[in-house]
């Protein structure tokens, strides 16, 4: 029997233990206590414990507080040792070397390919320094700009490359790639152009269990899929079956995300449940006794964990399945809450960093919510709904309730990380989950029979193609529904916790007495108040100017005291990197901004225009302002058609124009004059010199956005010397020597100069002379390559500056 936790009186040791363990990890993360202190404390507590044990001989009388403190300190020590205490040989000490060095390492994962890249994890063994090879350790991720199957797991390879540090959180609302990799114990990145310079020293080392058993299974499954399927269905099936999401097109991932069923694309608990179901019944059909069938299923499950890359959700679900099945053999009652906690404890023992992983959190929140809230929600149902004999009605009802409880559990976390609340997902999951079950079964069948008979494999794959295409259409339908997801501004941590408190109380509404009802009402009122203060807070009289770190190029976002929004340029867009999608959209969603009142394009070079397109496409844009300069690029054509399609008013700006919509800000255009833009839209002095230069005044603080102006435009600007003096200046053209003439800088006399530039760029931006020029005028220099995004807040009198990386 499986209990669902109806009374509080039950003793759940694993639950308590895992909570204390997690608490210790959180403390370790926040407080960062010195390891020596923790070590001493632990040794002391341990000694006390031993002494008590030896003298009293009785275990029951130990002081629980001692235990609790011991567990908490041990877990924080564990976390510290795993995440920050590295030996001098660790790769994290060799990062950020500007030049390339020789590296030797062993491939530690199965290489994954897409159309033009191959990636794998490398366990570094040695790094060449100036004089000698040094032994090194730790893992890095290697990406090759070529599709190749020359490498396999366990190969020891040698090559020359730069060992780079992954990007941390460089923009508000952005993705912290560094933290993401570190949680997977990966500390460096290596990019290789091609395979030619890589020398294979040794073949087929590595753990035999992986190289001889697990990877062949995975490869064979992959081959079976690739043999018959192509395009989105292939990518989808690889994601569903093996958890390889690399090949899934962005557009498909988006519709899955929008309809709140993205979890089926990662191997999750659902899959484990199906594996157990399929294989257990298979073994029973082959007349194995119950106990043997359980043992064999557990064996298969063990393999499946490794085949899919031992991700947290799979480990969690497999452990829970193992406990439930073993409970059946041993005739033990199984408490699901305790089992869930046990699985969590197990995962945290092996990788305490996982606690901060959104995947881990979502997985546990969903299951916790199902285990805890589902039986309580069921009590809400009127009696006639609870007594259903028709199977499909029972399934529909139960399915929706399970789905609802899971969604309740994950909604706050999803809002926190992804700035959205899925709405349609409650319904979508009821349909999609069993559908994916069908796809999985077909996929397993194909992988089982495919290697022996390609015809049978084809049969299953062909039916799966049908199921997969159907799935894509269904999900597209759900995603296209209005209000399939709601965009919300990122809630703060207390709000997330508050949400859980309210939900926890709400599902218990039938079980708690009068006092509880009052508590709920109070909490709801408090939540209401909070929402209102949030809504009103938009009116702080503060101007916020954000200079995004977009590498080479500019993107600047302004939020006026009145809550109006203006975007100046959008950074670049290339095949691999779209500033709009990577930087601007996440920022706008995080801040809960759905409408951009004005978009100002200084000039149509791709590093200023590229990222704007995503914004024009996905947000309400009030008006677009540019200089009317034309450019023969596809980006520019796309820009023009997009404006026409969306019916966005376009305004051509010239020197002397004013923008009045952003009162109390006064925005004035200083450049270009007519001589820099020919009547038919071409630039006699080049596009850079035709850049719009805008001046913004708010109280006594002023900003000057110089676009990419160069020498010719400088001279023109100097004719309006009276308007040049400004508090903050956006240095033109990434601080290139072609702009920022001495006279211009002296005319501006900035207090703060912001240079938007990428790290280690090949143009040598910013020029040292330019930086010195600004410094000599007394300006403080902020650079996006060193500081990340730069956020300037001002109320017209005082100014405060915050940077994403080096906090002031």
């Amino acid at each position, binding site marked *: *029997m*499986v*209990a669902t*936790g*109806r*009374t509080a*009186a*039950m*003793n*759940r*040791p*694993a639950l308590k*233990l895992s909570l204390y363990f997690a608490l210790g990890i959180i403390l370790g993360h926040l407080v960062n206590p010195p390891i020596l202190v923790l070590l001493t404390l632990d040794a002391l507590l341990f000694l006390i414990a031993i002494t008590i*044990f*030896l003298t009293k*001989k009785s*275990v029951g009388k130990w002081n629980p507080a001692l235990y609790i403190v011991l567990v908490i300190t041990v877990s924080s020590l564990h976390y510290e040792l795993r995440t920050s205490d590295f030996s001098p040989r660790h790769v994290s000490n060799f990062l950020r070397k500007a030049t390339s060095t020789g590296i030797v390492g062993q491939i530690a994962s199965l290489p994954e390919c897409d159309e033009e890249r191959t990636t794998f994890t490398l366990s570094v063994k040695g790094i060449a320094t100036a004089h000698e090879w040094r032994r090194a350790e730790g893992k890095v991720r290697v990406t090759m700009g070529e599709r190749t199957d020359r490498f396999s797991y366990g190969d020891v390879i040698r090559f020359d490359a730069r060992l780079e540090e992954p990007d941390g959180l460089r923009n508000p609302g952005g993705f912290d790639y560094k933290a993401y990799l570190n949680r997977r114990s990966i500390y460096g990145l290596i990019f290789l152009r091609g395979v030619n310079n890589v020398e294979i020293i040794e073949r087929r080392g590595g753990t035999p269990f992986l190289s001889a058993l697990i990877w062949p299974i995975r490869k064979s499954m992959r081959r079976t899929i690739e043999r018959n399927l192509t395009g989105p269905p292939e990518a989808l099936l690889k994601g569903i079956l093996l958890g390889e999401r690399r090949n899934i097109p962005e557009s498909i991932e988006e519709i899955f995300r929008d309809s709140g069923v993205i979890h089926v694309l990662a191997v999750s608990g659902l899959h484990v449940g199906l594996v157990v179901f399929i294989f257990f019944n298979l073994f*029973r059909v082959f*007349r194995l*006794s*119950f106990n043997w069938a359980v043992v064999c299923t557990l064996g298969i499950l063990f393999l499946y964990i490794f085949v899919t890359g031992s991700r947290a959700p799979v480990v969690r679900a497999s452990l829970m399945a193992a*406990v439930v099945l073993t*409970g*059946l*053999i*041993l*005739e*033990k*009652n*199984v*408490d699901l809450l*305790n*089992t869930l906690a*046990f699985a969590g404890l197990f995962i945290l023992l092996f990788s305490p960093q996982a606690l901060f992983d959104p995947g881990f959190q979502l997985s546990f929140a969903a299951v916790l919510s199902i285990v805890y809230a589902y039986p309580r929600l069921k009590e809400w149902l009127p009696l006639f709904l609870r007594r259903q*004999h028709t199977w499909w009605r029972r399934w529909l009802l139960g399915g929706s309730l399970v789905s609802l409880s899971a969604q309740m559990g994950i909604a706050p976390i999803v809002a926190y990380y992804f700035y959205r609340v899925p709405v349609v997902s409650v319904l979508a999951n009821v349909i999609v989950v069993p559908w994916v079950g069908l796809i999985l079964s077909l996929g397993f069948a194909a992988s089982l029979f495919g290697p022996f008979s390609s015809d049978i494999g084809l049969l299953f794959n062909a039916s799966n193609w049908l199921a997969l295409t159907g799935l894509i259409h269904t999900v597209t339908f759900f995603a296209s529904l209005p209000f399939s997801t709601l965009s919300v501004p990122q809630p703060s941590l207390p709000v997330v916790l508050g949400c859980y408190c309210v939900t926890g109380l709400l599902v218990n509404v039938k079980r708690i007495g009068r006092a509880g009802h009052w508590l709920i009402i109070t909490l709801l009122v408090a939540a209401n108040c909070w929402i209102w203060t949030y809504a009103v807070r938009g009116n702080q009289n503060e101007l916020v100017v954000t200079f995004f770190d977009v590498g080479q190029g500019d993107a600047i976002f302004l939020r006026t005291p009145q809550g109006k929004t203006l975007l100046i340029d959008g950074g670049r867009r290339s095949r691999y990197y779209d500033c709009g999608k990577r930087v601007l959209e996440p920022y706008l969603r995080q801040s809960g901004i759905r409408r951009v009142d004005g978009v100002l394009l200084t000039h149509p070079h791709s590093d200023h225009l590229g990222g704007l397109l995503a914004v024009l496409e996905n947000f309400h844009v009030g008006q677009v302002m540019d200089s009317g300069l034309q450019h023969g690029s596809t980006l520019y054509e796309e820009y023009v058609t997009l404006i026409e399609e969306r019916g966005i008013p376009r305004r051509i700006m010239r020197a002397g124009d004013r923008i009045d919509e952003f009162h109390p800000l006064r925005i004035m255009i200083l450049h270009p004059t007519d001589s820099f833009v020919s009547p038919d839209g071409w630039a006699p002095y080049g596009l850079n010199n035709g850049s719009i230069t805008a001046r913004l005044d708010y109280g006594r603080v002023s900003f000057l956005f110089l676009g990419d102006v160069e020498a010719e435009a400088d001279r023109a600007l100097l004719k309006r010397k009276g308007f040049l003096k400004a508090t903050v200046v956006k240095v033109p053209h990434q601080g290139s020597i072609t702009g920022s003439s001495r006279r211009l800088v002296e005319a501006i006399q900035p207090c703060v100069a912001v240079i938007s530039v990428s790290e280690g760029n090949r143009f040598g931006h910013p020029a040292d002379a330019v930086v010195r020029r600004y410094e000599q005028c007394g300006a403080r220099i902020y650079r996006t390559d060193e500081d990340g995004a730069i956020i300037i807040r001002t109320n017209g009198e005082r100014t405060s500056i915050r940077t994403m990386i080096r906090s002031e």
Partner: protein
Amino acid sequence: MTNFKAHILRCGRTLWSDCLSGLADCIFPPFCLVCEKGLEERDHLVCGRCWSGFEIIDRPVCEVCGAPLPKGERRCPACRGKGFSFSGVRAAYSYSADIRKIIHAFKFGRKISLAKRLGRILAFVLLQDERFRQAECMVAVPLHVSRQRERGYNQSELLAQAVCAELGMKLVKDALVRRKRTKPQTALAPRRRTRNVEKAFRVTDASGIVDRKVVLVDDVFTTGATVDACAKALRRAGAVDVVVLTVTRAT
């Protein structure tokens, strides 16, 4: 010195066994499957409080169908005219949501060890009735072969075994078989149940039951359709009399 050494060794052994049982308790914290409160060490799966809390049928019951009688009557109005093939029913407990949990754990949750305790209770019930004491052998309601294979055991047979072991009675196995893959009676409305089990049972080996008084064992008695079908088959095969013993009865 040796004393100290022994002490340390003893401590070590305690520590080790405590660790093992601690780990087991951590993964499978013992709790009662009925009330879900913590279990004491001597209890197994169900706590003593819950066992004693179940409603025992000790009121006067109908001689034939075992239903509690309205005052003053000897035969109940309910089973008059139904013509059951068995001549008496005895059940230990009145059916309730709590006892249902035990039956479910026993039937579907593989808690086979519950058979021992339930068997003891059934033996006690059996001994109270004269007609049951006179019975010579015991037969369990069978499962269909496919269901038995799927489940791995027949809960009624386990019960019968336990009762026989307690009383030294003879259990006749393989006398009765279920030929039809009947639907679970619980999924059907009461009036359809008789139809569902009609001709579902057959006696394949009558040698054990011919000219004998038989006790038929099942887990639950609701409308009596299942046991009636079994009793009919047994009587036809030559059993002198069939009485029914179940763990619970709907009242």
